[in-house]
């Protein structure tokens, strides 16, 4: 006869229903002893530092996929996001190679380090997407690739003798580049996002946003959001993953007001007001990539990375 744990919260955890966003739980405090002087300190909160050290030791894997027609600035944006040449720019290969006849999946990994944190960043490019005359089902190779990574991971997980750390090649997020037409989403955009939002976190991004004025931008974003909603496309952050009320409020604001982010990418630096900034130079001014008044790149960067 063994006495089981007193706690009955196990039952709720075993439930298969997606929980409604709930209030952050108030943890009942057990009396910590009669005195509250320094002698009362146990040291439980040191686990935060212990855990942080361990995660820094193992390092992180991040796999980001970029999808969109040629020329929308995908590679430049990813290079701007990670401040390094992690994605080969299309302007490089367009001159020598032709646009591929089918959708290709190119995954290139680099190791980047910042503040002692090591990250294996894999950028998965999809050249050829949407570039054909007949683009029917061009999302299928992409969907297949994503599922193949899940398959690979599951195989490792199901092994009897498993690896201490299973290599993670699963696509963590997919940036979908929307053309800044200013009108609405294209049928291809809707088809792709409809299919893929079910298997991967999609972050829709309005590319080359320097071709729109502020008003055009706001209107376009509203229309895009409406179209996504009408078509039942759930982009990241999805409602079902809101953990509590705080999450829901924060995420609702992002979902209903900020996204999709209208971005501009650049790897060239210019001098503005005595500072060196990333930007694009035009006869009518310099567009500062990281200036929130000019475009929403900084929002995207904070959202995805920080």
């Amino acid at each position, binding site marked *: 006869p*063994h006495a089981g744990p007193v706690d009955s919260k196990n039952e709720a955890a075993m439930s298969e229903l997606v929980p409604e966003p709930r209030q952050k739980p108030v943890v009942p405090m057990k009396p910590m002893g009669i005195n509250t002087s320094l002698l009362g300190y146990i040291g439980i909160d040191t686990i935060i530092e212990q855990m942080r050290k361990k995660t820094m030791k193992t390092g992180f894997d991040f796999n980001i996929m970029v999808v969109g027609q040629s020329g929308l600035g995908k590679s430049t944006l990813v290079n701007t996001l990670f*401040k*390094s*040449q*992690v994605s080969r720019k299309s302007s490089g290969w367009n001159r020598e190679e032709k646009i591929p006849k089918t959708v290709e999946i*190119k995954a290139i990994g680099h190791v980047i380090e910042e503040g002692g*944190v090591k990250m*294996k960043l894999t950028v998965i490019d999809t050249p050829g997407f949407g570039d054909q005359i007949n683009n029917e089902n061009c999302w299928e190779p992409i969907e297949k690739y994503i599922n193949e990574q899940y398959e690979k991971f599951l195989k490792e997980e*199901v092994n009897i003798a498993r690896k201490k750390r299973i290599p993670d090649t699963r696509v963590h997020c997919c940036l979908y580049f929307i053309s800044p037409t200013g009108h609405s989403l294209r049928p291809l955009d809707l088809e792709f996002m409809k299919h893929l939002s079910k298997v991967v976190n999609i972050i829709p991004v309005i590319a080359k946003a320097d071709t729109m004025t502020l008003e055009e931008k706001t209107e376009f974003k509203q229309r895009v959001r409406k179209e996504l909603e009408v078509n039942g496309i759930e982009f990241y952050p999805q409602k079902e993953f809101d953990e509590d009320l705080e999450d829901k409020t924060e995420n609702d604001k992002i979902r209903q007001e900020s996204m999709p982010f209208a971005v501009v990418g650049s790897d060239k630096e210019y001098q503005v007001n005595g500072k060196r900034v990333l930007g694009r130079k035009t006869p009518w001014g310099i567009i500062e990539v990281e200036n929130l008044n000019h475009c929403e790149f900084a929002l995207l960067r904070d959202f995805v990375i920080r």
Partner: protein
Amino acid sequence: KCFIVFQGEGCRTVPLSGHVGFDSLPDQLVNKSVNHGFCFNILCVGETGLGKSTLMDTLFNTKFEGDPASHSQPGVQLKSSTYDLQESNVNLKLTIVSTVGFGDQINKEDSYKPIVEFIDAQFEAYLQEELKIKRVLHNYHDTRIHACLYFIAPTGHSLKSLDLVTMKKLDSKVNIIPIIAKSDAISKSELTKFKIKITSELVSNGVQIYQFPTDDESVAEINGTMNAHLPFAVIGSTEELKIGNKMMKARQYPWGTVQVENEAHCDFVKLREMLIRVNMEDLREQTHTRHYELYRRCKLEEMGFKDTDPDSKPFSLQETYEAKRNEFLGELQKKEEAMRQMFVQRVKEKEAELKEAEKEV
């Protein structure tokens, strides 16, 4: 139709030209854990009256519920209680499991069994959840034992055979930290000899106790030093006495006062430091990546060999999974082929019909 090019098996390191911000990743991960709260489960194994409950009270600065056990238990039982503790913004779900009646029976041959069964039961529960098709692992209350404090009676001589047998049965299932209980019963010189004897007995019997990790430079030194102090000689007390001008946890004797947190008097501070402030996360990690994996592997292999298919071939989870998957894909292909055949057939029929119609015209 699809080309997959993967460059980067030997990934190049690329320099950054500015601040990206992913150095916040450890914090992002840690914050998620903080929001979820942490679990820590300690198992105290030791004879009745060795001060297990008092030590837990002392370690966690609180009075946990429970009455002292009697010596007349018919068999060994395990009593488990869970508490919610909070310090700064850290919420800890602490579970303390204690043996009741350990060492009290006349015949102690089976004494270790309920303990092993309990530890295995927690592994089993986790394995069941992991194997579920629809699983909720991130919300799972982990009851697996992260640390086992083995209380050694302060005889001053050597380990009892019950101690050796029990620890041998447990060392591949849980992180064992041996401690000498009620060590104020031993003098300092006797203590040194006692520790040496215990350590050599553990080594000669091949008992693997938990080693504080020395691979991380920041803690390698302190952990290395502490490893040499095992087993920790501890004293527990929740009574506070005024010593000098401070209130301290202590035990008062006619011949003097033993201060719990005085490192010259006992190793309590060392135990607290190692168990909680330095290695709590490592204990959790070792439990998951070593002890649990071993249990899982053995359990699955055991199931694999007990069940045989009609051809009397042993099966593996991996092979079954592969077989089922191929079966599924095969079915899919068959269906596709059938549909294609049907389509071709219809076209032929239509063609024939048209030909007939032409003839008539």
